[in-house]
């Protein structure tokens, strides 16, 4: 049967592996970085499925590369609360990395908002002198402003840096500078605006989306957005893809598949 393609079984990261939390760093009022005692090969933008045995499993982007891989977690509901209660030496399960990750090319601008800055951090470190805009509601919720001292900072309330949205800063800079690509991750409304600005300016955009994930490996279809699987075809999507995504910035599905507005999806808390 040598004419039939050989099927490789077992990719080696299918089952969660238990790893130790080596170090915990408070990033801001709502975010902590958990450093795990494991080096993981990954592409910026890829994520891990993080398992707390007995509680559940949720996706988190890799925010730090190195001997200790880091994930940066914002406090939301039950799962992240339990993570926040954990101490150095505690153990969690991880599988992955999953997803496609960003495609690196040329002269780049990076626009991150809130927790969306997490997956962008390893990307920024891999780009050649990118123009970085980091935004948050206020100074207390800013992420990685110290890690990237050259970044432009925006806060909605003006408590630090530029007062206003990242998108306003992006519009301004686009008048002065040319970019090959704009990378973005953050609240979907923000990403939608970034994308529209890029479309108007004729610049390629790569946006990292979020949807409720179950399998994380592209089979269950739950994370689907207009025929694309966020876990497998994404989480990073190109301008060509974003252009045909009717739900982008509009609707998303809850755990039970109910379609709700993106605002309601984001606000929703489970249990």
């Amino acid at each position, binding site marked *: *049967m040598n*004419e*039939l*393609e050989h*099927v*490789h*079984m*077992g*990719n080696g990261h*299918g*089952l*969660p*592996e*238990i790893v130790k939390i080596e170090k915990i760093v408070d990033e801001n009022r709502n975010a902590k970085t958990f450093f795990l005692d494991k080096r993981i090969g990954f592409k910026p933008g890829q994520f891990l*499925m993080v*398992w707390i*045995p*007995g509680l*559940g*499993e*949720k996706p988190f982007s890799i925010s730090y590369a190195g001997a200790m891989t880091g994930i940066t977690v914002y406090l939301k509901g039950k799962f992240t609360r339990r993570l926040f209660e954990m101490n150095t030496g505690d*153990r969690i*399960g991880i*599988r992955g990395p999953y997803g496609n990750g960003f495609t690196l090319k040329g002269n780049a601008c990076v626009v991150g908002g809130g927790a969306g800055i997490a997956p962008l951090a390893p990307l920024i470190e891999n780009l050649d002198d990118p123009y970085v805009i980091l935004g948050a509601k206020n100074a207390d919720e800013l992420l990685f402003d110290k890690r990237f001292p050259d970044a432009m900072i925006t806060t909605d309330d003006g408590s630090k840096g530029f007062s206003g949205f990242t998108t306003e800063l992006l519009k301004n800079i686009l008048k002065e500078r040319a970019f090959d690509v704009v990378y973005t991750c953050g609240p979907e409304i923000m990403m939608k605006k970034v994308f529209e600005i890029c479309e108007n300016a004729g610049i390629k955009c790569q946006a990292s989306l979020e949807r409720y*994930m*179950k*399998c*994380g*490996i*592209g*089979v*269950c*279809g*739950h994370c*689907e957005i*207009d*025929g*694309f*699987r966020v876990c*497998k075809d994404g989480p990073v999507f190109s301008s060509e893809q974003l252009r045909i995504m009717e739900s982008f910035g509009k609707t998303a*599905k809850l*755990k*039970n*598949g*109910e*379609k709700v507005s993106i605002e309601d999806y984001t606000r929703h808390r489970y249990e």
Partner: protein
Amino acid sequence: MALGIEISGIRLGNPTVLASGILGTSRKMLERVIENGAGAVTTKSISLERRDGHNNPTVIEFDAGLMNAVGYSNPGAIDAASEFSDMQKLDAPAFVSIIGKEPGDFAKVAKMMENKGFSAIEIPLSCPHTPGFGTLAGQDTPEKTYEITKAVVKSTNLPVFVKISPNIKNIGDVAQAAERAGASAITAVNTMGPGMIINIDARKPVLDFKVGGVSGPALKPVAVRCVYDVYESVKIPIIGTGGIMSGKDAIEMIMAGAACVGIGSAVYYRGIDVFGKITAEIEKWMDKNGYNNIREMIGAAHE
């Protein structure tokens, strides 16, 4: 050479069918699977009421296959009825998978899905990991199979496919009960087991529901045997499902008695374009071995 095949009056361009519960969460997703070469597609199973399903982890990969306890998460029949419409406009036939706790539930959902352009209704009576449904609710006995199938057949004009479990001894009896009740085809099989995988460092089962159904390569030989047995028990066509990874696997299933093959886990192993890949492999093999159409291979291993 012809790769097309007709089952229950439905014409498939090739014998690969997207199995239920894999990718089939939206019309666009089904459309994309068809673009990737599927001869037909099946929706994720739809229940009357909306369901969260089990908690994560719900799907995991092990050495020899996948294990899942998704637990029939779905937005319910009303939402599904608005998601799926004009299915006849897709480039391949679409089947709608419906579930229920009682025969009446099945009948209701069947009615709600009737004018959406689906080519058939599939009723899985065989899920091994969802309380209230499938094997955990005893829907896999010949009696219950007959009763539920009858209720669905009565409530719809569409052909009804009954999806059966590999975990029962009298699989032929169950298939016959479905046929007697008016089923147009048998989908064999659903996932195996259930199984359990324990993480020894965590001292805990990995799936949050503890147990889950086994699919992929581990299931294949059992699925092939089930199809072989069902082929000897009924006259209606069989959608052979379980562990199909390659054209060779598909032909093996067809020689066991399937008219076409369901494909699920292979989407993980070989990508969403697995349907086109498998079809090309089937074609190449048939060409090399002098077969002209799929029919010549159906049940060949029984000779």
